[in-house]
């Protein structure tokens, strides 16, 4: 199995799972979905510098083969931002749950939740 197929299908599966989870009604699956989407994006960004195996990420005149270092820098930035954002959403979701008593995204409790004390 080629590396390209493996990476491409990973991105595809992660994105599909992410979109499905993002469309759920409760905040917890949505947060997981956002995390999946950001993983998919990170892997995708990596592959944008073309897939190269076992080469250094530096450019030098003496070097004939190297891997593109820029996507790696981009992915690092994207990971940091996605990480911070996930933390923010979790805190926000918790706070909303405590204030409204439901973790539905639209804030309207489902019938079974309403019965709970």
């Amino acid at each position, binding site marked *: 199995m080629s590396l390209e197929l493996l990476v491409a299908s990973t991105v595809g599966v992660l994105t599909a799972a992410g979109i499905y989870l993002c469309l759920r009604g409760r905040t917890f699956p949505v947060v997981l979905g956002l995390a999946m989407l950001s993983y998919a994006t990170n892997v995708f960004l990596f592959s944008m510098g073309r897939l190269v195996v076992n080469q250094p990420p530096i450019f030098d005149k003496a070097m004939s083969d190297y891997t593109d270092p*820029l996507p790696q820098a981009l992915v690092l930035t994207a990971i940091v931002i996605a990480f911070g954002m996930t933390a923010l959403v979790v805190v926000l979701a918790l706070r*909303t749950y405590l204030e409204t008593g439901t973790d539905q995204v*639209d804030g309207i409790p489902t019938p079974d939740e309403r019965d709970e004390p």
Partner: protein
Amino acid sequence: MIAHLIAAPVLLPAVVAALIMLFRRRTLRIGRSVSLASCLALVVIAALLMREASNGTVVSYALGDWHAPFGIILVVDRLSAMMLLLTSVLSLIVLGHVVATDLDRRGWHFHSLFHFQLLGLNGAFLTGDIFNLFVFFEVLLIASYGLMLHGQGADRLKAGVQYVIINLVGSTLFLIGIGILYGVTGTLNLADMAIRVPELPASDLGLLQAGALLLISVFALKAALLPLHLWLPRTYANAAPAVAALFAIMTKVGVYSIIRVVTLVFGAAAGSAAWAPAPWLLPAALLTTVIGFLGLIASRGLRELAAFALIGSTGTLLIAVTLFDTNAMAAALYYLPHTTIAAATLFLVTDLIIKRRDGGDRLIVGQRFAGSEPLSLLFILGAVALVGLPPLSGFIGKLLILEAAMPFASAPWVWATILITTFIGIVGLARAGSTLFWKPAAVGGEPNPPARAKRPAEFAAPALLLALLAALTLLAGPATSYAEAAAVQLFDPAAYVDSVLGGGG
């Protein structure tokens, strides 16, 4: 000296935002002074940059002296300078309103968040690099989450969760779009990309267009273009109105990004990829205008009313932008400051009305309230400005847009949409005005003066914004010639590319 000044609109808010964290509760007075002083300094810096840009030079600044296309580049041309000035003036007045109404006492770190927001906005208007555009978008979004939730409350939190989630999905799409464009062109610098796009082999065209459309859809999300506008009314109607007034500039960040990326990278020189997103954008802009102004009639709350007014007027702006023509762009660039200021005025007036009425935000007939006379005057002037009736500048702006749309095949659609939505807007705002100010007279009873009635300073900010609109009307000559020059500069990106790749300042 002037070359280094370009970095100031990014650096100053960053430093001040961190500094202001020191001043809380007891020393809030010092924090406020620092905050206001920094906003004033930003106005001065923006005015200096605008004077520099107004003679047509494009000045670029390589941060850390790492030159393009490898380093991070800040670029000032006429459009950027105009956006900087608009942002700084609007933020100064909104901040004055926040201080006058004590909004910053209702939560923590308001001034820090406010300055981080300015950092993101100014950065987005200055950067010449698409990945940095993403980073500045994130900065302004993170700050906007904090500002939107300022003051808290269950409704605000519920709307906040949705706002954060939809923008996170938007950021993901932004990254994928950037990834595709980088994979195809091998660069992130916008000017460099503008050179490489025409040279691409035909086999890459599909990917290039997919990347372009992904990026544009993210910008459209920020600009609240039709199918992607649903987040805006709920978010802005639940944020504090003064914060929503600042957010009026956020939709313009989306509009600015559309203008910048399409004219620079996918402009006339782009070969077979030229104007790739344009056919999709014009119908969406027309429908956005219709939905926005129809929302004025349908809205049940005052803040919702102002939010729909913002969508409608941004839609009108986007109609002119998405014709992608020099004259139409000039009209759009004249209309842009007008619509931002008019929408902000409406939010600030809404804020003052809600604070005084017993009915609060809901559009129902309530008792008469103290201060309704000056407020009704401010409301009608704001409404006149927003829908674009004479004598204020919206009328000139809409007239210019209609005139510029004449030679196009889509002219009947543009004319019909703008004229009919203007009428719908008048009806919607007149309904709101009579509910607020006239019908309470029939209810009778003494006006109930709340404790905060005697605070004339609160009226200063909306009055100042209206004065700005009057100035924009009186100075329509110089303003339109600046807008025309900016549009010509946008449609001839050679100077921009030269300035960035030729080493710059």
